[in-house]
């Protein structure tokens, strides 16, 4: 496996082409008029830039944008609130059985959602929330708790206990220690959790498919899939729609990629 420098770069560039060519096709197709899609190669750049795909896609998807933001933002906030409270309790105010409680929660990270999907829908219907935006907020909050607890547990383990001891000497109670000492130093942990949760909830499809049958709560991902069914072979519209759907998470990723990787590894490598 002794590779020359040239060989290393050649392979990395080849891999870059593999990972980027679908994105390239996505962008160029979205900017072509429909006539060009069938008269030119799909690899070629648009001869005339045409925004009609974006116009059609936006008209079909704009409600999904609103819906997705409407449940993603609260679910991100709630899941982070519960995760940081739990992560704090599990690391800084150790109690007997803390590890058992941690694994009880962590197990949810590896859950195949199929095994909870039927009771979830029945439960949501029985509390009269089917078709209500809160069904998606509650669901995404609940299934986000395992990963946010893990992220904050890992984050708080690295915080020196002396900080808390100092708080105790000053006579602060547990809640004051949490709000006055832990929250302010948690910002990097919160950023990691926000980015990870935002990406996962925005991109989710399965919960939206089972709970979002009503148009006024239907997530963007479900709407994009429906657009695919109604706009068969209108590839400029479909690629414009796909690009619009991906845009919020791509922007977050490109700006905050470092934190995205931390979320990924925070959930993967450390126990």
């Amino acid at each position: 496996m002794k590779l020359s420098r040239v060989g290393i770069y050649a392979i990395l560039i080849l891999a870059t082409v593999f990972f980027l060519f679908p994105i390239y096709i996505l962008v160029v197709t979205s900017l072509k008029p429909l006539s060009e899609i069938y008269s030119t190669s799909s690899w070629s750049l648009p001869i005339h830039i045409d925004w009609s795909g974006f116009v059609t896609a936006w008209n079909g998807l704009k409600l999904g944008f609103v819906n997705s933001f409407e449940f993603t933002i609260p679910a991100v906030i709630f899941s982070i609130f519960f995760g940081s409270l739990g992560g704090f309790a599990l690391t800084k105010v150790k109690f007997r059985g803390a590890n058992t409680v941690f694994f009880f929660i962590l197990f949810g990270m590896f859950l195949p959602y199929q095994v909870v999907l039927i009771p979830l829908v029945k439960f949501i219907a029985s509390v009269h929330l089917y078709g209500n935006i809160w069904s998606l907020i509650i669901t995404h909050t609940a299934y986000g708790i395992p990963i946010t607890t893990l992220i904050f547990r890992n984050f708080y383990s690295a915080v020196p206990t002396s900080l808390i001891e100092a708080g105790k000497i000053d006579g602060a109670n547990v809640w004051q220690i949490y709000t006055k000492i832990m929250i302010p130093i948690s910002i990097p942990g919160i950023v990691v959790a926000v980015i990870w949760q935002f990406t996962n909830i925005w991109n989710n499809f399965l919960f939206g498919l089972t709970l979002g049958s009503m148009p006024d709560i239907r997530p963007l991902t479900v709407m994009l899939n429906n657009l695919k069914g109604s706009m068969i072979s209108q590839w400029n519209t479909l690629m414009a729609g796909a690009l619009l759907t991906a845009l919020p998470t791509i922007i977050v990723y490109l700006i905050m990629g470092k934190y995205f990787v931390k979320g990924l590894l925070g959930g993967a490598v450390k126990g």
Partner: protein
Amino acid sequence: MNKKSLASISFVLPSVIIVGVFVYAFIAWTVAVSFTNWNTLLPNWSFAGFSNYTSIFTNNLRFRMDLINNLTFTPFFVLGSMILGFFLASLLDKGVKFESFFRTVFLLPMAISLVVSGTIWVWLYDPANGAVDALLKLIGLPAINWLGNMSFALPAIIIATIWQYTGFTTSIYLAGLRGIPKEIIEAAKLDGAHGFRLYWNIIIPMVQSSTVTAFVLMIQLSLQMFDIIWVMTSGGPAFATDMPAVYMFIAAFKQNFVAQGAAIAVIIFLLTLVVVIPYLLTVGKITEEES
């Protein structure tokens, strides 16, 4: 129990209750329903024994095909993304310029919804004017109707999923490689370990925990693969890409075979436990030792 412990338990209690209901109680509910006759629109809790399990294995071929498809898909997807991820991570670890650019590009698909990438890949594989066939024609190969052909549809989806997840395994391995102390590599090189032997005898064993993590995560994703299949083929053509998770969704939510859907879900769950339980036990042991 002192006041402090009580306060801290109250901090974690909401999460415990929520997870208790949405994870554990719901699993119990699904298991219970899988033993009933609830294969109708209206609930029917009469006891059915193992009949839902026996019927999905014997009554039709679909579930057996799903298992075969999943067993075919899994090694290619899991090993493909792990080997490619390790390989790319090893190259990135050699002190290359523009490392962060390459990392950003490789991980980009992970930031994109599977619905989006599924839609893109359907267009890439389009038999009329898709980019993949255009490439094949360019190098003189015949065009293939990828997603419409029984032999090519599953490989086409495997390629799309490897594209989606390889950045994930690359990141896991890169973190593992960065964790190897430089002195160990230097000492091994002084002892004459180079190239393949350095990797085989030193580096690969040193990143074992990355391998275990990547393996468990990829297997678990593979067993519940749904989104991208639903978007690209819905399990077709002729069930060539059908998977247990797709059948579960159809049975439970489209055909009202609720108990059968629950039985399929329980099987997916049990298969997942086979890899996840040993993993959590090892992680648990490490956590105990640390604390």
